[in-house]
């Protein structure tokens, strides 16, 4: 049986010409495409191109991936490795946690953590001020560094997407009346801020691993 790659589109469009935006070696040989690749290599890249719509930070952590995943899967790990999230308490709704984002005064942040041990993904679904619509989503994935880097440890991938609510607070009445700032005001320093927090995570996990301490401390796993 022959491969059916893009056959449906060929039937639909009635032509074997590539549809706009699709570049495949059959119709765009490397000799033609390579110059385009090279022209896109720069010494520097505009901030907006790198951090405008998506904010991604990654790093290596010298700590076994399953243990690091288990730690991250505890919502209260955020109490330790984030820069500003403090005083986590579980709400009456199971799995939904309330904390305070000390970036601005009296600012509540709600978090529900969705973790998948098999894929080692940890998604923190969050929102400022209210816990009904969790639209600030921190997508994290822990990789086995042995597989991707050929050495023991973990690689952490972390991406945020720029939901339109970052630019306009959808629930202004939910926040403190006297507060003038908004979480999205900080979007352009998310790269730097998340980089700092990822480094916190790395420093804490590596300290525990290096010194034989459990990566997830007792208070987090028992209480």
């Amino acid at each position, binding site marked *: 049986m022959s491969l059916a790659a893009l056959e449906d589109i060929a039937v639909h469009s009635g032509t074997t010409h590539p549809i706009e935006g699709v570049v495949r070696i059959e119709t765009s040989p490397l000799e033609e495409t390579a*110059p385009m690749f090279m022209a896109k290599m720069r010494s520097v890249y505009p901030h907006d191109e790198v951090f405008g719509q998506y904010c991604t930070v990654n790093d290596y952590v010298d700590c076994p991936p399953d243990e690091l995943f288990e730690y991250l899967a505890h919502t209260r790990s955020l109490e330790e490795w984030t820069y500003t999230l403090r005083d986590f308490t579980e709400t009456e709704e199971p799995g939904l946690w309330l904390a305070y984002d000390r970036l601005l005064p009296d600012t509540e942040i709600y978090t529900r953590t969705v973790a998948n041990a098999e894929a080692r993904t940890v998604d923190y679904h969050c929102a400022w001020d209210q816990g009904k619509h969790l639209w600030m989503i921190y997508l994290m994935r822990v990789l086995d560094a042995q597989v991707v880097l050929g050495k023991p440890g973990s690689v952490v991938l972390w991406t945020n997407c720029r939901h339109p609510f970052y630019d306009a607070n959808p629930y202004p009445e939910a926040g403190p009346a006297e507060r003038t700032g908004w979480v999205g005001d900080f979007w352009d320093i998310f790269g730097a801020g998340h980089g700092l927090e990822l480094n916190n995570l790395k420093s804490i996990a590596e300290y525990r691993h290096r010194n034989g301490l459990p990566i997830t401390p007792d208070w987090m796993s028992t209480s």
Partner: protein
Amino acid sequence: MNQPTVSLADVSTYLPGEPVGADYYAQFAGSDDLAANLMFRAPKFRHHVGPDETAIDMVERAAQGLIERHGHDVIANVDVLITHTQVPDMGFYGEGGGIAHRLGLRPSWVLDLNNGGCAAFVLALKVARQLLSSGQGRTALIAVTANAAGHVFDQAGVRRKAQSAVPGDGAAVGLVTLSDQSPILDIECRTYGEYAGDMVLASDPPRKWWAAGNSELSIGFTETKITKVLARGNQQVPEVALAVCDRIGMSSKDIDLLVTNQPNRVFLRNWREALEVPESRHLDTFDKCGNLFGAGIPINLDHAISDGQVKAGDLVMMAAFAHAGDFAGAAAVRWGGRS
């Protein structure tokens, strides 16, 4: 005690023969995987060294501008001669002695700098500055020759390759003196020895460059190697220039004239983007002269001075990287004008 100030007092240059147009290569162009590659997209013109024109001939011609402006005595009295010849006419001992003799010099120092490549002028400035400031003389002459285009890249087989349309030939001399006329503010040179083997001389069938055989020698490139060189050059040139800026307490935005080597248009764009220098203050001669390798910086500087694009008091930043990224250098000069 402060070290005495050393200046880049003047430069003069030479472009051999009439300009050779891009159509010269079009007639030979073979089918070449790299033909469409913008790393090798041809400049409109370049110059070719004559078949029997030596590097010493080129330096002698390049020096005429200095002699006209400063008198032969300034040349005759140089204490330090530093040379870089891309394709030495005699590989074993270089061109330094012959150049000294042809120009009528009796310098106490003669040095050939083969490792500097496209950043040879910066490396030579650093050596000259060190020697003069440590009491080894009052005047140094730097002589840089690019002569591969007409010799290596114009061989009947090699000129069919896309890469052969990019190089150009030219020579430059720089006059370095103990004075505060155009002070050299700082220089950064870095060697990345791990990349030293990444530029190779290729021939089919393979042979040592000095061994007998009929195969023509050319610079060996593959698509993947070009990508690595592009990435290294993108990083190294801004890095050394910014290191100099840091030490002299200036921002790269304060650069009044940026002159770099000019391997292709992409590097030129990327470097000024990284240094936040507008195109109007980054002078190149790529379309007139092609890739001038080590002669690129002084030839571009000479053109900028002659065209009035740099004036007394301007901060001039020279920056380049060499070969496949095994060396990079940057030098800042407060240009004092041609006296």
